[in-house]
């Protein structure tokens, strides 16, 4: 393909986009891409929270009473060697008591009634993959010398299941909005195609190949997608910054993504998606009008 031909496609597509695309359709595209991006941001934050919660999931393995230091070291090595275990930390019964005292605060005096330290020695076990917590806990509990394991039974399972559900639901919603955007861009390009039906007819009659006719519309779709995505991407990026600042003042305990990189990456992804969806819409819709 000649360079001048490519230039012709770009110039034609750009000119046609400027001439035919109304502010209303551009606004509609920008709005739907904005919603798509907003869904993306919500997913990004949910993922962030989920990651945070999952990283806090730990298994505590309580040891039987009266084990020798050698025995404890051997158990530690055994746990360390277990599949899926990332890190093992020893928590002595004295340490556990101190932590408990600190947690009880003023009511720590009830511990004095008990007298002797009732807490067992234990290991804090961090797992490599939070999703496998339950299996790893079972494996650790089978090690001799381990009296019992605690990983927040019930709660952990529920948390993991909820996170998976939220991920799937989010992906479905995102998919729905992708379809909506393709449809809207396609409809916009379709309108310009209808308004240029005569031009397409003449092109066909003077011997233009189908692809020669299609390319400018593809470019037009890409321009429309890019402009719409740029507007929505910019609004999202700036809007998110303000939203985070507002939320930080209102509810500082909610963990939100504050780093600009993932948000910027999302906006860039939105741009790329806008261009691709525009090209697809432009390419698909013009095909119906090529039968002359």
């Amino acid at each position, binding site marked *: 393909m000649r360079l001048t031909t490519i230039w012709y496609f770009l110039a034609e597509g750009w000119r046609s986009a400027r001439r035919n695309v109304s502010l209303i359709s551009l606004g509609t595209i920008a709005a739907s891409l904005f919603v798509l991006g907003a869904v993306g941001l919500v997913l990004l934050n949910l993922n962030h929270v989920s990651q945070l919660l999952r990283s806090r999931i730990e298994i505590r393995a309580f040891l039987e009473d009266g084990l020798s230091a050698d025995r404890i070291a051997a158990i530690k090595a055994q746990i360390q060697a277990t599949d899926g275990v990332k890190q093992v930390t020893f928590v002595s019964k004295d340490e556990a008591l101190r932590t408990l005292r600190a947690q009880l605060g003023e009511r720590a005096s009830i511990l004095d009634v008990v007298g002797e330290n009732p807490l067992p020695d234990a290991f804090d076990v961090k797992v490599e993959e939070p999703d496998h917590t339950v299996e790893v806990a079972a494996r650790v509990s089978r090690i001799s010398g381990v009296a019992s394991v605690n990983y927040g039974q019930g709660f952990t399972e529920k948390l993991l299941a909820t996170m998976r559900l939220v991920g799937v639901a989010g992906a479905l919603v995102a998919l729905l909005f992708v379809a909506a955007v393709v449809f809207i861009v396609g409809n916009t390009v379709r309108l310009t195609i209808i308004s240029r039906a005569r031009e397409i007819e003449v*092109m066909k009659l003077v*011997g233009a190949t189908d692809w020669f006719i299609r390319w400018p519309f593809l470019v037009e779709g890409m321009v429309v997608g890019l402009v719409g995505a740029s507007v929505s991407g910019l609004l999202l990026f700036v809007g998110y910054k303000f939203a985070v600042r507002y939320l930080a003042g209102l509810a500082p305990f909610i963990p939100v993504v504050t780093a600009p990189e993932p948000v910027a990456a999302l906006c860039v992804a939105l741009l790329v998606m806008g261009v691709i969806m525009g090209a697809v819409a432009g390419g698909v819709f013009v095909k119906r009008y090529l039968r002359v």
Partner: protein
Amino acid sequence: MPRSIEVYQVNPIFRSMREVMTLVRLYSVSKVYPNGAVGLLNVDTHIRQGEFVFLVGPSGAGKTTFMRILTRQVLPTQGQVIVDGRNVVRMKPSEVPYLRRTVRMVFQDYKLLPNKTVYENVAFALRVTEANPRQVRPRVMESLELVGLAGKARAYPGELSGGEQQRVSIARAIVGAPTILLADEPTGNLDLDTSWGIMELLLRINKTGTTVIMATHNSSIVNGMMRRVIELDGGKIVRDDERGAYRREADHYMVLPG
């Protein structure tokens, strides 16, 4: 010894010189539209290179269908069509654009793009074929000069008279140096003086070797040119005269000679 016999002796496949130079050939071609209307019925004919042919006949006789088949705008329901060595019926859709670069059309309603200048309208037809960009300008200007409109290159079609617009559409048709020029009622919307101007132009193009096939209702033009006339009626060829006139009994277009 006539040349045709020489050819016959050299290569028995060519039965005559006439056949060697045949550019368009229709073998029992019929076209029945989905609604049952008959476009063409069992038409057999051939047109030689460099000929000037009039297609005449009442409305609905099949003139336009004839032309549309040559450019593969419609497919015949039966028969075979050969144009410039290509089988139009068996052609793949991807080959159609290349057929249309050798067979260009001129229409009664010009089919110019109103938002492009005269120059752009003509250049468009050349660019579509991905011609060498350096050649676009000289070739477009050459065509416009041939039709006498080089001075109006920057005008828009809406600013031109009907005759001028038809000249632009002719310039667009010949800029790619087609083998065949199809003209469907090119003078249908024009007065007689202007029509003769268009005919002179088509004749000049024909003299450079381009085969011209023109459908028309205009009896005085047909009678004044004395060229081959193929008359269609109800989709059938009812007459094919080498130097014909537009004459048909009981036809309201009939014009008495003189």
